[in-house]
């Protein structure tokens, strides 16, 4: 499978390990990535909260670039995925808006390509394919699959059910992990407020951690650098709200898959996390 690759700002810097693990696992699964030359920021939340046109234009430029390559585009960052997919949907639904946006970007997007999330990319080969690549099943791991708000909402672009999605679980099970049924998998982590109003974000984060701990998880899997940053780095601050706290490593879905497929912790960037991941490695062996 050939895909245009849209890393997004975080994957270049604060989420480099996600970038590496996506590329590693993707290649193992036979995906050929072609990074979009000159991609620009999708606008993230600042874009659409400022101007609808701006949000659409920033996303549309990147879509147009991918279209010039003639490839569907994968955006591993859930926020980028949502922005790009939603822009595509909104443009397609409103031809006159589409025309306006094309005029603003000066780089017409014609709607001939699709946007894929990392989960869709991994599942498009089927769970059998994943199973066939597993050399070190993730036995002993009890994973809380965390979707956050960006992968399953709004309806137009959701990759699975908004209340109890199962696609990440499917992948994790294929990798030999046990998944826990938990209650906060599609709650928002408050990442967009974390910088500006940390005191608002911390209780939100702690609610999620609490639910994962209560479900007996020993790690969290996610597919979004913003969620990761929040749940991992801010875990230290959130723990004061938690009575029965124990450290809960937060890993990218692709890092877990990479481990199962025999990749080393260094290649997968496991050491780059704030919450120690060694416990995970021990369990997997």
């Amino acid at each position, binding site marked *: 499978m050939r895909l245009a690759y849209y890393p997004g700002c975080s994957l270049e810097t604060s989420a480099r390990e996600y970038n590496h693990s996506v590329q590693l696992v993707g290649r193992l699964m036979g995906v050929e990535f072609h990074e979009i030359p000159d991609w620009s920021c999708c606008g993230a939340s600042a874009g659409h909260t400022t101007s609808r046109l701006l949000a659409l234009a920033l996303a549309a430029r990147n879509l147009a670039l991918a279209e010039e390559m003639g490839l569907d585009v994968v955006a591993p960052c859930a926020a980028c995925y949502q922005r790009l997919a939603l822009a595509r949907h909104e443009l397609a639904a409103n031809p006159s808006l589409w025309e306006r946006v094309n005029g603003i970007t000066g780089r017409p997007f014609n709607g001939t390509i699709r946007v894929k999330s990392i989960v869709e990319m991994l599942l498009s080969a089927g769970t059998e394919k994943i199973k066939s690549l597993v050399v070190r099943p993730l036995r002993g791991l009890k994973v809380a699959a965390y979707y956050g708000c960006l992968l399953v909402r709004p309806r137009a672009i959701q990759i699975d059910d908004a209340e109890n999605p199962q696609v990440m679980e499917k992948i994790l099970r294929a990798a030999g992990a046990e998944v826990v*049924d938990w209650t906060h998998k599609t709650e928002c982590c408050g990442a967009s407020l974390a910088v500006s109003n940390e005191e608002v974000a911390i209780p939100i984060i702690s609610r999620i951690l609490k639910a994962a701990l*209560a479900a007996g998880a020993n790690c969290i899997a996610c597919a979004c650098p913003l969620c990761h940053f929040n749940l991992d780095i801010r875990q230290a601050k959130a723990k004061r709200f938690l009575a029965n706290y124990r450290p809960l490593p937060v890993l990218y879905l692709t890092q877990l898959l990479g481990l199962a497929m025999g990749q080393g912790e260094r290649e997968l960037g496991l050491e780059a996390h704030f919450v120690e991941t060694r416990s995970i490695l021990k369990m997997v062996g």
Partner: protein
Amino acid sequence: MKRIGVFVCWCGTNIGGVVDVPQVAKAASSFPGVVLATDYKYMCSEPGQELIVQAIREHRLTRVVVAACTPRLHENTFRKTLERAGLNPYLLEIANIREQCAWAHQKQPGRATEKAISLVRRAVAKASRLEPLFASTIPVTRKALVIGGGIAGMQAALDIADAGHQVILVEREPTIGGKMAMLDKTFPTLDCSACICTPKMVAVAQHPSITLYTYAEVEKVEGYVGNFEVTIRQKARSVDHTKCTGCGTCWEKCPTRVPSEFEQGLGTRKAIYVSFPQAVPNKPVIDRRHCRYFAAGKCRVCEKVCPTGAIDYQQGDQLIKEKVGAIVMATGYDLFEWEKVYGEYGYGRYPNVITSLQFERLINASGPTGGKILRPSDGKEPQSVVFVKCVGSRDPAKGKEYCSRICCMYTAKHAHQVLEKLPGARVYVFYMDVRTAGKAYEEFYLRTLQDGAHYIRGRVSKIYPEGDRLIVRGVDTLLGRQVEVGADLVVLATAVVPSRGAAELARLVGISCDQNDFYTEAHPKLRPVEANTAGIFLAGACQGPKDIPDTVAQASAAAAKVCALFSREEMAAEPTVAQVNQFLCYGCLECQKVCPYRAIEPVTVSENAAGKKIERTVASVNSGLCQGCGACTVACKPGAINLKGFSNEQVLAEVDALCL
């Protein structure tokens, strides 16, 4: 030559004050076929009518035109006038020169007069094309079919039977009683549901005029009002009820346990079972899907233990044909399947989130817990119970747009029951509105408030487990705050929807459904218990959500309608119905497709063609079913099907006259 009389009415000054009535009469006298044109102050008055009668006799009139008020008012009056004069009542045509002329054009008397003349010309043109029509009569089979054996069906059946008519009651479950038999107490009186329901069930079973088919379904309905022929499928019970005494040995010994439908999954039953101890008939059926013998070919325990040899594994379905004159639909309701759409409430994964019907079983002394309120997960007594209203109701996104009407009251009842049975327990009711329109309903609700129930105004966004409790996160819009309650038990007031299969049954019977699959009444105000097909009546929740008193009232109303139909051996049918010219009909049957009443059927006619005898299919109208809409006449290319009273010839003549 037709001899037409034109009678122009002044209606006091109503018409005469605007329209130059004498001039209209004068103009009419020159229209083709008119032999008499005259006017009178009040044509509908006794002297006015007498004037018409006399004129008909004197001038040997063969058609009558009355120019007066709208035909919707006095058409029948003047038809009777014609009848009095010995003329066929359908040889009358009315020109509406009051509502649609004098009143509408008061400020332009000249133009009004001109229009009146034109309208009279139209009426004369149509009159000259009128033919005598005769109301046909249809024999009536004085036996009714009631579909559904819940409280609605039982009430209707008893009322009709008490009036002296035969009734066939068909129920698809093994017992009659329906939902009401499952309930604990009824609001607002809190009397025991079983205590008033089971005597009705027994009365139905013992009534000499009621034939009861349980575990049976209606398979086919043919015919029309007064003359239906229905086919009923008696599903194989695998038990010979003529031999069975209902002793209960078989279901005691049966080794297979399955969740009980009657207990809403909170209890179990055997594979050979009666639904509940007071079931009518109180004899078992074998659920073949779960029976070991039918599934694996081994077991036969029930056969071995049965003292009367009533078990019959070979029994097959039976088809029974019955002729009836009327049908009462009383198919009731089911609960909306909330588990399929409400992910935020757990998609049915949490055992302590139950429906209100499950709660009824939980609190029922004959239920799985013997009437103790215990949470399903661990059998503990709940300390905090949360009720959530409007689950699936008033929710266009996930459920139904309509209000289910009964939830406010039964939730108040449930809240009251919890507070009564579990002193010290806390009760929270999340609601959007509290709707208590009904006798003594508001009082009941207020009592529940005084009992200590906390009513929280707002919807619940999420229910999730934390430890062994449930967290209910909602809103109190009165406080303007997000709220959370810990709950041991959550009861969802799920929407009332038509019972499963209601829409298919409607198609089979030939009535229509609304967008929610509730059966449509013939008129929302004036004919609320009749279906749009003659001879079919509606009772209870199949027509829309209803509580017990309303259901019983509608059932009795439907029964009264049936009795009115059965009051004579024959019924008169409106003569303004469609008619097929079989010579012109070439049998394409497009007319059949557009007929909303299934009044058109193909028939075979034989005729001679080029010396050979051939058989040919043509359409034929059942005048008992036809309501005279005329949709078929337009679907018919060669004009082979025509509508009496509004025929092609007549309408074309009217158009011609109006365009002069």
